[in-house]
């Protein structure tokens, strides 16, 4: 039996299923015991699992991420709700040097099984300190896996995979894709038919959302859905766009990216993170390092520019990688 679910509900179902069967999993984060976290991932878990397994923390990310890493090394599997990635700075040392390095530095003797849930992204007028993506900042760290589902089916399957992983997984969700009430009506393409039964979606495989032959558009998180909108517009003009969801940043499916671009010969890379030193450059490198001769045109990046994200709606909308800018980039590729 399957139902149409939001990403928030689908992820909650995976976490609930694993918690029912495994005593090693516990939840940590701000406002999770009564409120279930800002994305509802742990909605109702306080009443169901009690205060020892659903721990509401003070606003002290440095403290509770460190506590989680220690608990993971001692044999537990903490699931941390970090709400917004904008606050990653205050717990960066644990991510950078402890959670992601201890397995390697102990010669494989100590594992750090922990799942860090983080919301990313803007588009809802929350200004420069609550709208960032910053996924490149975490994907840059060797030793951590970083995944980024964009729909409910992948959210459930990838969270099961994360919770069964023996080491550190950073699980990102763009706030606008989660399907929570305070963000408004869910985007249709984020909703999926989700089976009742548990299933896993492996890390490190792109998903071709929509097949096309003229131009490859890669995206992740929200930019997948903007790319799909752009592909609809382009189809009306006779341009066949292939939309590829990266889904997983570490490991990154470079073969999958290359295969799509080898087919179309044209590449538009969309990314809501900042332009420079980011995932968008990495996607292009994945193609040109292997064989630049498959490209009919130089690739184009459609990203947020290297500026603090504006609060004012018209200004923010003008800098985000929305469907109009993506479609324009694809048209340039075809010109």
């Amino acid at each position: 039996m399957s139902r149409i679910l939001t990403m928030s509900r689908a992820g909650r179902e995976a976490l609930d299923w694993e918690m029912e069967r495994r005593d090693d999993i516990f939840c940590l984060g701000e406002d999770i015991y009564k409120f279930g976290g800002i994305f509802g991932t742990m909605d109702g878990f306080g009443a169901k699992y009690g205060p020892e397994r659903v721990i509401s923390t003070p606003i002290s990310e440095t403290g509770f991420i460190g506590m989680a890493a220690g608990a993971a090394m001692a044999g537990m599997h903490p699931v941390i709700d970090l709400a917004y990635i904008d606050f990653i700075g205050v717990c960066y040392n644990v991510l950078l040097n402890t959670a992601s390095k201890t397995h390697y530095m102990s010669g494989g003797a100590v594992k750090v099984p922990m799942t860090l849930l983080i919301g990313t992204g803007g588009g809802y007028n929350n200004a420069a300190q609550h709208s960032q993506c910053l996924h490149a900042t975490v994907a840059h760290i060797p030793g951590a896996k970083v995944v980024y589902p964009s729909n409910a089916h992948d959210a459930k399957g990838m969270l099961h995979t994360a919770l069964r992983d023996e080491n550190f997984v950073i699980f990102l969700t763009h706030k606008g894709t989660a399907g929570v009430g305070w963000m408004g009506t869910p985007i249709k393409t984020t909703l999926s038919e989700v089976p009742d039964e548990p299933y896993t979606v492996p890390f490190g495989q792109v998903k071709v959302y929509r097949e096309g032959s003229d131009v490859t558009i890669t995206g992740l998180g929200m930019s997948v859905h903007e790319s799909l909108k752009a592909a609809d517009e382009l189809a009306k003009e006779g341009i066949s766009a292939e939309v590829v969801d990266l889904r997983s940043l570490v490991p990154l499916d470079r073969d999958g990216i290359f295969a799509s671009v080898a087919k179309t010969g044209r590449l538009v890379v969309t990314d809501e993170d900042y332009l420079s030193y980011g995932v968008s450059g990495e996607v292009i490198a994945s193609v040109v390092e292997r064989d630049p001769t498959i490209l009919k045109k130089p690739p184009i990046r459609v990203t947020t520019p290297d500026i603090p994200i504006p609060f004012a709606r018209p200004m923010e909308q003008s800098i985000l990688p929305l469907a109009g800018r993506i479609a324009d980039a694809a048209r340039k590729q075809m010109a």
Partner: protein
Amino acid sequence: MSTPVVIPADLWDEDDKTGSIVLWLYADGASVKQGDLIAEVLVEKVTLELESPATGTLRIQVEPEVVVNKGDTVAVIE
């Protein structure tokens, strides 16, 4: 025989507030069981849950993003 799916009077507190369907968890014409969660209803940025009052075939009458009030029939279970 068919059973209407009605927005319950106690789904939210204030009588003067309106809501809207956020999403139907099943497609029109799908089989549902009594007690299944079938829709999310948004009221003042809070998401509430609507359960199926009967077992049968879901016939959706009100699409998402349309204003609904307490007591409104939003679907029928045939």
